[in-house]
């Protein structure tokens, strides 16, 4: 049946499973309460109109049905713990178990944000130590750990940019964004009330410095640049870019999504960046996907420090740590309490477990792995930009599309080979992009399996393109109709035979 056999994946019984609502039968329960040993309360009297006896269609199931339901669903999943997750731009690296161990230490797991500061000194010290580590890694001056994800970090960063310009009497009008940028960048700029101006990349896939010089003027508040950019290419003229921005009073924002290529090697603060966000769930190995939650700290140069979100962590006169709420120029609070604290513990555990040399090795291995894949697949897939790759490599489907097979089809077939797909059709400046980021987590054996799979798929395209167009073949369900799902979405379950 399969044209080419894969060494990685094999067939496995995968049980069917419906929705838990559909398993329900009246009266079943997975719990039993002990007899009431306190006076009964008249809930109707207590709650009045708010009292509700009918809970709607809640599933009524036994304990083993619940256990089997979720266990079966979990076997349908693909995760980094099962294999490589080469989703470019997402840095889907392994989440070390030591992170989880540390996050579950009793005093940390049971801490509460409403605990008084004087009995929260340990937690505050974790925030301070992580802040110091991230400042050393980025070469910046001040930081907030509040934002809950990268895009919120961008929003926080640009709000600070706006506040900075406003404090000088003119908020300015525009944000410049290269055409290779993440889609969140223009969305952030628009949300903050700036007009977005596109900056074309040059033939090497980098910011065109001459175009920037022509477009930069005193209406521009900032340039949002990702470095390395989404082609996995280091912006070699970044210092010149920073100079051009600063000469006209503009600021340089760096999207830190690709920091995995720089940690312990190069510091954005040293090459002219004024404000940037990090993704702890990418670069610093906290869980990514599955709800994370994410964490998107924002680091800034001194000039932007007065605008950091409130509260700011400070050392009090008595030497203890605490939060300062009186920050008159602050952009305000951006997140409840002080962000996703559980992620701070994991990121700090990762940084300490690696140490400076370990972090440097991590960066080198991430770049080495990406280049190993590049070398292995060069010639098999079209490489639109020959500029050296950092932590990820971008191919295009130009050769395969001659047979009518596009990047999405190749990605669907890759699932049959036991891999999560790479990122398809991004960055937009590469038509039919295949964006591959292995991260440092992958051993050579897994990279070889991946290269073998991609080569095998390229051969299948030549031999029988229709077979690839119809992929995936070995999954629970075949290709989904993504268009119908977007055009006519079904957003909720409705009980059969009931009008809701």
């Amino acid at each position, binding site marked *: 049946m399969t044209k080419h056999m894969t060494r990685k994946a094999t067939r496995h019984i995968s049980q069917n499973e419906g929705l838990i609502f559909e398993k329900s039968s009246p009266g079943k329960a997975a719990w039993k309460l002990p007899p009431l040993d306190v006076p009964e309360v008249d809930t109707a009297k207590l709650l009045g109109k708010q009292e509700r006896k009918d809970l709607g269609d809640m599933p009524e199931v036994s304990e083993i049905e619940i256990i089997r339901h979720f266990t079966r669903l979990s076997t349908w999943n693909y995760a980094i713990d099962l294999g490589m997750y080469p989703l470019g731009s997402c840095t889907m690296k392994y989440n070390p178990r030591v992170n989880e161990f540390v996050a579950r230490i009793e005093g940390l797991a049971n801490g509460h944000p409403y605990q008084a500061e004087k009995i929260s000194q340990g937690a505050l010290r974790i925030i301070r130590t992580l802040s110091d580590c991230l400042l050393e890694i980025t070469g910046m001056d001040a930081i907030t750990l509040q934002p809950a994800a990268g895009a919120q970090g961008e929003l926080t960063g640009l709000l600070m940019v706006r506040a900075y310009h406003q404090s000088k009497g003119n908020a300015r009008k525009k944000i410049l964004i290269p055409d290779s940028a993440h889609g969140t960048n223009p969305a952030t700029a628009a949300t903050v009330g700036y007009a977005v101006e596109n900056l074309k990349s040059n033939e090497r896939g980098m910011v065109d410095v001459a175009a920037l010089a022509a477009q930069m003027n005193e209406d521009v508040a900032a340039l949002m640049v990702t470095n390395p950019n989404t082609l996995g290419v280091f912006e070699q003229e970044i210092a010149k870019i920073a100079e051009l921005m600063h000469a006209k009073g503009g600021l340089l924002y760096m999207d830190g999504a690709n920091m995995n290529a720089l940690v312990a090697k190069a510091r954005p603060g040293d090459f002219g960046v004024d404000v940037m966000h990090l993704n702890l769930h990418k670069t610093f190995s906290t869980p990514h996907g599955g709800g994370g939650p994410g964490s998107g700290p924002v680091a800034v140069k001194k000039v932007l420090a007065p605008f950091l979100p409130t509260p700011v962590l400070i050392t009090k006169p008595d030497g203890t740590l605490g939060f300062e709420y009186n920050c008159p120029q602050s952009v305000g609070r951006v997140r409840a309490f002080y962000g996703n604290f559980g992620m701070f513990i994991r990121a700090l555990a990762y940084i300490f477990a690696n140490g400076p040399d370990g972090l440097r090795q991590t960066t080198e291995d991430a770049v080495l792995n990406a280049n190993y894949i590049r070398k292995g697949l060069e010639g098999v897939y079209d490489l*639109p930009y020959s500029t050296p790759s950092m932590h990820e490599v971008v191919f295009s489907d130009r050769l395969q599309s001659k047979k009518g097979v596009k990047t999405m089809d190749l990605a669907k077939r890759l699932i049959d080979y036991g891999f999560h797909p790479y990122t398809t059709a991004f960055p*937009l400046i590469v*038509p039919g992009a295949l964006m591959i980021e292995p991260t440092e987590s992958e051993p050579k054996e897994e990279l070889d399996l991946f290269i073998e799979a991609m080569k095998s798929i390229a051969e299948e395209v030549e031999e029988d393109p229709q077979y690839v167009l119809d992929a995936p073949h070995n999954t629970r369900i075949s290709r989904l109709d993504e*268009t119908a799902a*977007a*055009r006519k979405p079904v957003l909720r379950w409705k009980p059969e035979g009931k009008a809701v």
Partner: protein
Amino acid sequence: MSYPSDRKYTKEHEWITADGTIGITHHAQDSLGDIVFVELPKVGAEITAGKTFGTVESVKAVSDLYAPVSGTVTATNEALATAPEQVNKDAHGAWMVKINLKNPAELNALLSAADYEKFVSEEAGH
């Protein structure tokens, strides 16, 4: 693909007729993939040459619509709200907005069908 010569084209892949009807090109719909949503300005809105006046969302990405010339919107193709797939089926028939041209001379700066076809083939060769 041959592009109809009864209209002008932009490098941002829009077409416009002499009476101010605007849509996106066959090449644009092909590179976007299946279009799932089209967001258009209201009748009466002013649009400015080179600036965005709406968005097209496909299964792959959300893209801006750029005004080929300046003018005032006199009509929008409301059918696209429920049937955005018309743009994929017939990009040169499924118009998006009609405008009153502010300065018809602006049309002269746009690409002819032949120039646009050449531009697209060069871009694809990248």
